[in-house]
């Protein structure tokens, strides 16, 4: 009888332990929950303190794990830079972002004994402070809205793909109807009807993105459900819910993660656009879309183009970060 040589497996290193899904999820929760509590519910800034080491550790782990792909490392650096700023901005010695100080100060000039790195806007508010504070809202509402859309879209996709039949007919039909509207029109309809607020942005993003996510997950499910291990689970009498969550979902995660990174980019664009149109988060709190809108009027004069450039570059760098991350992850998944 054939004997199989047992390759000895080395004891897991600290790095391997940190890479376990449970640890990673813990770190994400440690980072995200305080940020949500601070931005959405106005809890005191001290709640953010545990998020600082969590951010740095997550970034280090991402760089070590993804060092094979330069694109992914650049992407994660851009995203993590803004995430880190979002966490530490309440502790930074910045001017009040809503307090007018001195109007029309161009970048790198000194006025009233203060040095303005990025100048001030036409109301005299510090651009540096507003830009750094602005990333908080885009990130928190954008990521939360995408996450909610993903939970709902994935659940619908699993049901439509696995149970098929009438479930699939109904879910796919509704999805197709929603997808036939232009996304922006949907957003505008929902937000003008329900009124602009953070919660309604989540509703609008979910409504517009969930059908697309559903389609991707449904397609993946249709493929994976023909595998023998799903058949094996069926033949031992597992319930459909168990099969969907334990047998199907983990094997669909690769394409879902890549798509989620791309979709985070779209959502950020959408939220910024909505604020630009005056349908998103309301003034006076700093927000990149709002800053671009306010600057657009002033930027007619060439002299003040920095007011437009600073928030515009910020939002592009964040979206570029999400897209590069998605590209890098896809590249790595194709390699092995």
């Amino acid at each position, binding site marked *: 009888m054939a004997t199989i040589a047992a390759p000895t*497996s080395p004891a897991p290193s600290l790095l391997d332990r940190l890479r376990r899904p449970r640890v990673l999820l813990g770190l994400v929760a440690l980072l995200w929950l305080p940020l949500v509590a601070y931005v959405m519910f106005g809890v005191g800034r001290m709640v953010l303190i545990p998020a600082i080491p969590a951010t740095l550790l997550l970034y280090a782990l991402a760089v070590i794990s993804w060092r094979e792909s330069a694109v992914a490392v650049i992407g994660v650096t851009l995203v993590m830079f803004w995430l880190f700023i979002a966490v530490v901005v309440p502790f930074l010695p910045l001017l009040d972002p809503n307090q007018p100080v001195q109007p029309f100060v161009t970048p790198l000039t000194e006025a009233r004994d203060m040095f303005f790195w990025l100048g001030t806007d036409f109301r005299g508010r510090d651009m540096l402070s507003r830009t750094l504070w602005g990333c908080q809202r885009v990130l928190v509402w954008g990521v939360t809205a995408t996450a909610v859309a993903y939970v709902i879209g994935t659940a619908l996709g699993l049901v439509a793909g696995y149970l098929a039949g009438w479930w699939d007919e109904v879910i796919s039909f509704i999805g197709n109807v929603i997808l036939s509207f232009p996304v922006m029109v949907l957003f505008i309809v929902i937000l003008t009807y329900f009124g602009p607020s953070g919660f309604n942005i989540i509703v609008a993003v979910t409504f517009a993105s969930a059908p697309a996510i559903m389609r991707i997950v449904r397609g993946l499910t249709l493929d994976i459900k023909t595998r023998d291990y799903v058949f094996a689970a069926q033949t031992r009498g597992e319930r459909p819910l168990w099969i969907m969550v334990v047998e199907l979902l983990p094997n669909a995660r690769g394409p879902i993660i890549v798509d989620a990174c791309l979709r985070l980019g779209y959502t950020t664009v959408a939220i910024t656009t909505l604020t630009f149109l005056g349908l998103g988060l309301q003034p006076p709190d700093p927000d990149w879309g709002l800053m671009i809108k306010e600057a657009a009027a002033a930027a007619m004069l060439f002299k003040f183009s920095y007011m437009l450039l600073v928030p515009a570059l910020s939002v592009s760098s964040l979206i570029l970060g999400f897209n590069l991350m998605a590209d890098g992850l896809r590249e790595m998944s194709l390699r092995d």
Partner: protein
Amino acid sequence: MADATPILECRNLCISYFTRAGEIPAVVDFDLIVMPGEAVGIVGESGCGKSTVALAIMQYLGGNGRIVSGEIRFMGQDLTTMSQEELRQLRGSKIAMVYQEPMASLNPSMTIARQLMEVPLYHEAGCSEADARQRALEMLADVRLPDPARIMDAYPHQISGGQQQRVVIAMALLSNPSLLLLDEPTTALDVTVEAGIVQLVREISERYGTSMIYISHNLGLILETCDRITVMYSGEAVEEGSVEQVFDRMRHPYTKGLFNSIPLPGADKHARPLMPIPGQLPLPHERPPGCNFGPRCDHFRAGVCDAGPIAMATVPAHQRHYTRCARFSEIDWQARPEVVEAAASANLGEVVLRVENMKKYYELRDPSLMALISGRSVRTVKANEKLDFEAREAETVAIVGESGCGKSTFAKVMMGLETATEGKLILDGKDLAQTPVERRRPQVVGHLQMVFQNPFDTLNPSHTVGGQIARVIRKFGVESDQAKVEARVMELLDIVKLPRDFYKRRPRQLSGGQKQRVGIARAFAGNPRVVVADEPVSALDVSVQAAVSQLLMDIQRENRTTLIFISHDLSLVRYLADRVVVMYLGTIVEQGTTDEVFAPPYHPYTEALLSAVPIADTSIRKKIIVLHGDIPSAVDPPSGCPFQTRCPRKLGAICDTEEPPIREFSAGHRIACHIEPALLAEMEPVITMPPEQAAE
């Protein structure tokens, strides 16, 4: 012949792939000579480099593959130094290749005629469209395709797999090549279709005198098609010689190991079990010093076999027979393999599973407007028709048939994923035909388990090996305590001869054979009464196949489990099974004990099936019966006898109109055929063994 220039000559060929992990030598020091009109077989297990050799001959190695040293001479010219333009002129005209997947080698958006006509139009100056079309048509007739004119205008998806492969061969022959490369041309096809292609390949070499290189993992196919054979192992040719030399007077331990691990007629699971080769194929970058086969070889001697590279040596007194074994002159090649202690044949117990008149029909709904108008929107597919058989405790019942015979549907009904349309399925006295799996008690579900075909699909890649087995134990209520479950998983890993630290591994870290062992452990975790094994070894390499099927037999004997073994490999069935059920298009055409089914009287389909299976034994004489046409679709089955469209012994009108009667020849041996029992009994055996072997 000795002075003629060879068509193809590979000398000291070394091919490497360059990856992120560094240089991976795929083929090392490979020699090959193909004389005009000769058919050379290359045989080896997956990963031995046989396809790399073919790609190197075509100069198609891809971006990261490179010929490191050595030369490939085609009719005297060195292919490795040719320009791309010269190679383009050569490929497809002087050297042609037939690939494994016929569907992938044909362009789905072009008609067959267009694709065939391209060959002469491109390679021959001044060939007109009409000429090209005429030649394509003639060639289609030459590869024995029925109704060539219709096939010319068809698209690839409109013809069957066997027909597609014939078209690909026709395309390769159109330019009248000097060398034809066939890379596993029949692996994706059914056995009876394969037999037709093999016969065609033989005809081609006789009629056109084309030199051929036939690459396969199946020794039997090589025997049927080739004059010479090269056995490859781990990137090296280990033995080379004429088919008779290598099959009967082999001089390399690996070749001997291969022959000991394939079931030949005469092997017996109790008295003369198969002898798997121990160990595993080394990874290309972890090859041992000296002989690559050393660590798995019984004749290994330190200092001789691991001293350094071993060169091909000529076997004295044999003409053109070479081996890469340092000790071939010292080994006693006539030695019989040690007789392993013969296991007592299991005495069969009570009937565990009885299938009575079981039918499974599917309704196909055609939602098209045309179907609605004509009122034929529902069609019935008879996937299983009147299945009737029983299985006893500790018995192995093989269900044999080609694709579309209804064996998977039967497995689904057994497992409770579908319910039967009619009839009974009695397990331990209880009828389960109408009980879907959700309504069966956990113990009953645990009593009926399954081993799957594809090792790469049988385990969930996202969960650990241990976790997947543990789930089954908990689910069937065998154990519920965490520590006890873990102990049981460890015990099961021991039973399937896997190391215990596989508990924490993920499936991607396991080889195909190891995954299949985990699949077996999972099926036996719930102490099953009946295990359905759906082609459990057909996707594995030959040497691993023997070990895994041996393991399955051992566990079965230990637990007195009933095994329903679904397979198309009649050699393996003959070796493993106690009883055989032959299915065709959803009906049982013949059933009986293994000896009864493998000896006359046969059902005509059984006869053809037996003849189609290639046997790697030069002393065996086979009657050649080649079936024409393809397996009909179950959606539109033929009237009367299901086999009438392809039957070589068709009587006449009665076969078209009436269902054949089931006649009992001896207790339990039943054949469904119109032919008179006396005439069936007079059939001559398909396989005849030489007297001295039959006497054993």
